[in-house]
């Protein structure tokens, strides 16, 4: 009998079809470090019919809020987010890139007004989806490293 490498979960979220190598960045986005209350399973470099290789992250007892899903989309636009309730897929969502990313990225320009003590959220406008190019609505600069800029 084949042993399942990753067990099904009762309640929580399965983030599937993450581009291979990006699972740890997804964990970072979700704020998952060493200190967790429920099981988190990470599978990296898993064979995939669709993508050849992919990563999977399963987080038990937690459903993601829209802002977290938007953040994941920035580094893993191919990902699917499945909400699991009582072992069943209650919701299956493909992440989709919004027109603008609000409050989830920090501008890389230290002289940008959003990096001063002003009561504003950052706004980045998507100027190209592939490759992903984001422009700060305030200082007009292109964001160089999207993954590193996620807050």
């Amino acid at each position: 009998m084949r042993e399942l490498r990753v067990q099904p979960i009762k309640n929580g979220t399965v983030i599937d079809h993450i581009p291979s190598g990006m699972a740890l960045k997804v964990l970072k986005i979700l704020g998952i470090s060493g200190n967790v209350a429920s099981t988190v399973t990470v599978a990296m470099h898993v064979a995939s019919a669709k993508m050849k290789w992919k990563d999977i992250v399963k987080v038990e007892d937690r459903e993601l809020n829209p802002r977290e899903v938007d953040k994941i989309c920035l580094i893993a636009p191919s990902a699917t987010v499945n909400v699991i309730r009582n072992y069943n897929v209650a919701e299956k969502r493909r992440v989709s890139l919004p027109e603008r990313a609000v409050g989830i990225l920090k501008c890389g320009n230290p002289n940008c007004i959003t990096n001063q003590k002003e009561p504003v959220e950052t706004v980045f406008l998507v100027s190209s989806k592939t490759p992903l190019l984001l422009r700060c609505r305030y200082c007009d600069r292109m964001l160089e490293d999207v993954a590193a800029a996620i807050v």
Partner: protein
Amino acid sequence: MSSFEGLDVISISDFSKEDVMRVLKTAKGMVPMATGRKPDRSLEGKIMSALFFEPSTRTRLSFESAMKRLGGGVLGFAQPEGTSIMKGETLADTVRMVDAYSDVVVIRHPHEGAARLAADFASKPVINAGDGAGQHPTQTLLDLYTIWEGLGKLDGVNIALVGDLKYGRTVHSLTTALSMFRTNLSFVAPPSLQMPRELIDQVKEKGLPLKMTHDIRDVINDVDVLYVTRIQKERFPDPQEYAKVAGTYRIDIPLLRDVKKNLMIMHPLPRVDEIAAEVDETPYARYFQQALNGVSVRMALLSLILGGTK
């Protein structure tokens, strides 16, 4: 933007070619009032706030002159010292306050994006008078006005931008604006100070002819406009290297021997030594006229935005 009334002026990219022409034509009509030959009270009772968080001579004074020539009033500060900003007030709060005191807010700020932020918090129109290394749209409009007024056109004009093209904000905005017209551009700069890739791509995407060189002599005899900017010493780690580079971009009489008869030499000012004083006396020198044009162009914008010109 079909009507300007109530609009913010943050970046030259917010303008279409038609918008630019509307401002330039309105500015031409403002000349008699801008020079004090004809009185105008069309903005009487209106107040302009001028928030200058960093020093500026030409921009601030020409905005004030523009508003007063139209019969309006001006309040504000020329530097943040002595204001509540020094006590740690946010820009957002300062803007909310002056928004209640005036009809239009003009802002110059050391941080990029400050004008956009101000516009988010103000209900009145905001005009960007320069934000850090970012945008300075009224400078761009007065540059375009100077060229258009001097040559009678913008399409088909041969223009060389010379000097520090990497860090100079005026040349970036000007490149964006000139790309709207069918101009022939040349970028003349030492390789380490050439125009950023993004702007080069912008010109190429429009299918406009573009020449890039480090030697001003490659283009000087073919251009209609020479737009000179200062090369700043602090951009060079080695002072000797700076002296070598700066010297080759100095405009003097011998360099102008074979130029076109109607060549216009422009400069956003202040200049240091990139244009020799002897050039001031030639018909090519347009940089002082360019600075004067700031008043009519800013009058045009204020008038269009505040409804003085319909």
